[in-house]
């Protein structure tokens, strides 16, 4: 039972990656990419968890209460913001693709070829 959160993190990572690989729609691709990123949130938070630990906020609990790891929470917060930023940028590209080229299928975009 103790491996379950990590197993789920691995699963989410791979499922999201599969979505990216097999996507026919840019918005779907971007969302799948954010699913891949969210696997790391689960992994980080799962690492820092302590059973029966309180949140690391000591405004109403005494200082030496058992609390979960605060560092992974801060890391996850940073991670979420980074993920949101990249998602926003990619969605802008998706909107642009629809506007300019009439397609949101990632396989139909024309690269610069030699």
């Amino acid at each position, binding site marked *: *039972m*103790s*491996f379950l*959160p*990590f*197993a789920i*993190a*691995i*699963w989410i*990572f*791979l499922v999201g*990656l*599969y979505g990216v*690989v*097999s996507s026919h729609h840019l918005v779907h691709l971007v969302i799948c990419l954010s699913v891949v990123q969210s696997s790391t949130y689960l992994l980080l938070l*799962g*690492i*820092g*968890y*302590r*059973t029966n630990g309180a*949140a*690391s*906020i*000591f*405004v109403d609990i005494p*200082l*030496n209460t058992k*609390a*979960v*790891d*605060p*560092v*992974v*929470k*801060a890391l996850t*917060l*940073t991670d979420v*913001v*980074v993920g*949101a*930023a*990249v998602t*926003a*940028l990619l*969605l*802008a*590209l998706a*909107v*642009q693709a629809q*506007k*300019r*080229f*009439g*397609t949101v*299928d990632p*396989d*139909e*975009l*024309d690269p610069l070829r030699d």
Partner: protein
Amino acid sequence: MSAGEGPARRRDSEISFATRRRLFLVSGAVLAALMTWALAGMPAFGDYHGIYGLLLNRVAVPQEHATNVITAVNFDYRGFDTLGEEFILFAAVLGLALILRERRDEEEGPPDDDAVGRQVSGASVAVRLITVTLVGPTVLLAGYIIAHGAITPGGGFQGGVIAATALLFVYLGGEYLALRRIRPLPLVEITKATGAAGFVLIGIAGLIWGVAFLDNWLPKGTPGDVFSAGTMQLLSVAVGFEITGGFVLILSEFLDQTIVLRRRRGARSG
């Protein structure tokens, strides 16, 4: 689809879609095995003894007088990371503005319904009432969360996002076009940039004061009070500004795309 923009067709690739899928399934299975092998070496779930976290839980409150240790980590101990993270959002918003800026062959116009001859109906009175009344409390809540970030759960990031959702309420209430006519966009951009610059300047103030960059040099009050954690709270406010500005810009750029910008009549269609 017009000629000059690159026809949309499925191009030939060396590998077919089915091959791609099969390749991925095989490598995905291998990656799953590798990750499981790696993660098997983790400490047991629920029983983590990382020294960094344990130490910070013990010393953050006495040292920094901030009862929210996570905010202390974000804005004090690891403030340099937050600087980078803030600028990631800054750069992403700049990039988004670059990509979605109004082009020469576009113009602003009211939203049309796709079906010929139909008008877009506005929001009902009930929706309008509720959404408009919610804007105020949302902004207030955001301000509260930003200001109390060092004490209770919250901080600049969380509060900033909440503030940005006030714009979504306006949109839901059908008042987006009216808001846009007031053109608060330059104000929003200035807010975002001020937040970003503000963070750096507060850090530099530490240097001027004689201590390190991003040092928490302001006097600290008693833990639990509103103004207790020194520069941490100023940084939180700066980040709040930047996030609010950034997300409002993102939302308004996307809303502009769907509602406002249309191909100029007579331009190439597609």
